[in-house]
């Protein structure tokens, strides 16, 4: 008889995605660090992809996205089927500009990112806040997930 350790199917599905996307990020970082220095434009290879961090504690999942220089109204957040989507458009100021651009490294335009949550969350209680160019989203874990975490004392 074989004993296989139980793994939450959602967690198992998360792992490969996690690894794959971190590999992609590492590749991007490599390109950003060397090639972008020569071209002077990090957005040249496929537009804007804001950095996202995910943290969690016992009760909550914290998502942070770096979105400098936006307005609250320009950011859209949606949650569906365990996937959190952050999208929006950063607009260049509409004022007419006289004079010359010497350097344009900032990216303007649309972005779209979707990430899957490591556990079930209570979709009705998701909160978001935008400060200092950082979008913070708090997703409380679903009650059924919390119930599984029963503390066992060894006597």
């Amino acid at each position, binding site marked *: 008889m074989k004993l296989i350790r139980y793994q939450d199917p959602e967690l198992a599905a998360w792992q490969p995605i996690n690894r794959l996307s971190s590999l992609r990020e590492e590749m991007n970082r490599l390109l950003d660090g060397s090639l972008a220095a020569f071209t002077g434009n990090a957005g040249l290879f496929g537009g804007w992809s804001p950095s996202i961090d995910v943290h969690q504690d016992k009760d909550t999942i914290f998502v942070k996205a770096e979105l400098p220089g936006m307005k609250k109204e320009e950011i859209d957040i949606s949650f569906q089927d365990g996937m959190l989507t952050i999208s929006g458009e950063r607009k260049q100021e509409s004022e007419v500009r006289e004079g010359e*651009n010497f350097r344009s490294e*900032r990216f303007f335009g649309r972005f779209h990112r979707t990430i899957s949550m490591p556990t079930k969350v209570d979709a009705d209680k998701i909160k978001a806040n935008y400060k200092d160019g950082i979008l913070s989203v708090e997703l409380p874990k679903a009650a059924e997930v919390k119930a599984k975490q029963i503390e066992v004392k060894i006597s």
Partner: protein
Amino acid sequence: MKQQLSTTTERPVESASRLPAWDVPPANIREEHDAYILELEMPGVNKSGIEVTVENNELTLVGHRSDLETKGEVVYQESRRCDYRRSFEIDPSIDTQKIVAKMEQGVLRLTLPKAESVKPRKITVGD
């Protein structure tokens, strides 16, 4: 070559694996009628975390992140989680006494006014 190798190996091991101490923020620079406008993206930095210094025609901008403390354990991380730093050589025609800095939603905007002597001016023809 031999010399180069020896200096590399002598360096402590940690320095190679350590994360970079500074991140270089992306910048936009444009010229306006009477000033240059410099914009830098520093998400996670607020007004009090900004240091602007001018020394020997070198403008240095440092941004200290105020969001480095996080709750819980890391599940996934893409941001570099370090402070920002970038230097620019500035033209002598800039009036460094009148540089204005503004911080808004993680974007630092500096207005570098041109000195009176180099501003384009209109001269009217007298009779």
